[in-house]
């Protein structure tokens, strides 16, 4: 089975969709599926052998962030050639409503096509003008996969119809393999009794990632636990990050900038609580799954995508979105609760179903179904 997979965002900036496409392609390859990936990239970029570059990416303001995408005649010519040479059984595009190569491939495709929709933001603005541009391409889709109930709801609302949910995958063992040593249970902390390590992950400069909400909640936590330490890790300028923190809180906050996957796993293993105060625009929240896989107790805003992943509070604590006071109250409850580690342990077992060994075969079954065959192909 030959699959042509299209990622609309450039790999030079890491992101949920990019990681998903690379990991899914690698796992499918291990399952014996022949995958070729098309993505925005320059010819001299360092890319896996199965990735075809579609031309230099251009930053485009989109979905509350800046996406690096490809469009224009050059990308169109590359896409056309990749489709012709690839001779794919199934074309699998990601986020086809983004102005990039996914939409181009879909508009050129003549065979069986499916899409995975990651974004949770409906194109409400200017919908009347852009809908006719998208419709001819969207009508070619034989099946649509959404990554969460939230994404499914958005697709139903803006494009109509139904979609199957296949969650984003994770190599769970990458995070589960690190031994758990939270700062609050270290020897020094047992003596002092007030040491608590908090962790924030993500592009902290983007307001929708919610760092301001967390900073609003921090004074009350610091008052109760003077040994509190908040680590902020994610892509962005540490100077800008420091400027976001009020001077009186700076002794408690450490901005470390972008970290590697291994480093992220270590930070999670050392955190007493991982906090996801994102205010919206999330369709899935892979980082919550990572935190759970690493065994870190999770406190997250109650946006739909997060409430779904945390099963409405069974696997982690939720607080009222954008409410610093509610976050402070929830954090204090969790930090005072000796059972937080046992709840995190339950979550650690539950996230095994997001492992690629479970998720990738579900995608293969979608391919088999749209090709009208069984498992014998």
């Amino acid at each position, binding site marked *: 089975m030959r699959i042509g997979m299209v990622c609309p965002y450039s790999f030079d900036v890491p992101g949920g969709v990019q990681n998903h496409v690379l990991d899914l392609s690698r796992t499918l390859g291990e399952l014996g599926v022949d995958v070729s990936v098309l993505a925005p990239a320059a010819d001299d970029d360092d890319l896996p052998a199965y990735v075809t570059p579609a031309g230099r990416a251009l930053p*485009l303001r989109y979905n509350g962030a800046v996406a690096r995408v490809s*469009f*224009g005649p050059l990308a169109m010519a590359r896409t056309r050639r990749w489709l012709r040479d690839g001779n794919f059984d199934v074309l699998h595009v990601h986020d086809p409503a983004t*102005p990039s190569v996914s939409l181009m491939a879909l508009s050129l495709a003549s065979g069986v096509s499916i899409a995975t929709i990651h974004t949770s933001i409906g194109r409400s603005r200017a919908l009347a003008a*852009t809908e*006719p*541009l998208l419709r001819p391409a969207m009508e070619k889709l034989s099946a649509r996969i959404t990554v969460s109930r939230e994404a499914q709801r958005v697709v139903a609302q803006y494009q109509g119809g139904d979609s199957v949910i296949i969650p984003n995958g994770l190599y769970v063992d990458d995070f589960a393999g690190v031994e758990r040593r939270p700062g609050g249970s270290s020897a020094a902390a047992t003596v002092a009794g007030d040491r608590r390590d908090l962790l924030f992950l993500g592009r902290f400069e983007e307001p929708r990632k919610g760092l301001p909400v967390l900073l609003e909640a921090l004074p009350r936590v610091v008052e109760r636990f003077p040994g509190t330490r908040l680590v902020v890790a994610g892509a962005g300028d540490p100077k800008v990050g420091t400027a976001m923190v009020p001077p009186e809180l700076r002794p408690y906050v450490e901005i470390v900038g972008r970290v590697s996957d291994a480093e992220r796993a270590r930070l999670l293993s050392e955190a007493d609580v991982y906090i996801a105060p994102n205010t919206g625009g999330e369709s899935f929240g892979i980082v919550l799954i990572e935190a759970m896989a690493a065994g870190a107790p999770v406190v997250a805003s109650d946006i739909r995508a997060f409430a779904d992943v945390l099963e409405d509070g069974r696997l982690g604590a939720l607080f009222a979105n954008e409410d610093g006071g509610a976050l402070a109250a929830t954090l204090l409850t969790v930090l005072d609760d000796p059972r937080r580690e046992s709840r995190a342990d339950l979550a650690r077992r539950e996230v095994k179903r997001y492992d690629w060994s479970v998720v990738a075969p579900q995608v293969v079954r979608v391919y088999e179904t749209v090709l009208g065959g069984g498992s014998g192909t």
Partner: protein
Amino acid sequence: MSTLEWVLVIGAILAAITVALSTTAGRLDRLHIRLATAQASLDRQLLDRSTCLRNVATGGVLDPASALAAVDAADAAREAIGKAEQPARETELSEVMRTVFGSAEDVDALWASADETRAGLIADLGDACERVQLAHRFHDDLVARTQRMRRKSVVRWARLAGRAPWPHRIDFDDVPPPHLVARDRPPVGPEVGHAA
């Protein structure tokens, strides 16, 4: 000289100073008015450019991804008119346009394949891009002239500018895609009347 002569001389000098000051004030005032007009004209041309780009994008001239990128950039630019982020959005719009239309050969191919209606849309966009460049140039020229006038000692000492804000250039990239503006096109021009 008699007292009367002294009075007459001093009166004449005072009158000359008054006339000079009021003339300078008048010139400065007219510069400010022309600057305000140039600002309004630039905004109108920018609005027109984004509208023309939108028409091209929704008129079936571009592939869907490029069209979508163009509509998004045009809407973002339109929302930013008169705001602090206006220069950044207009620069992004110019970059998106150059990517969407591609090289000179790509644009030539577009002209050759467009029917009369579509060629009209593209020509309108080319004209709008050219007018943006002109309005931008005129605006910044008036800013420079007004600044020079306001730096003069007499203007500063006599506070002739009153409370008018210090004028600033608007720095943004206004370079259109190659071969889109009429003056850049090969003399043959689009073949009008042939459906693609």
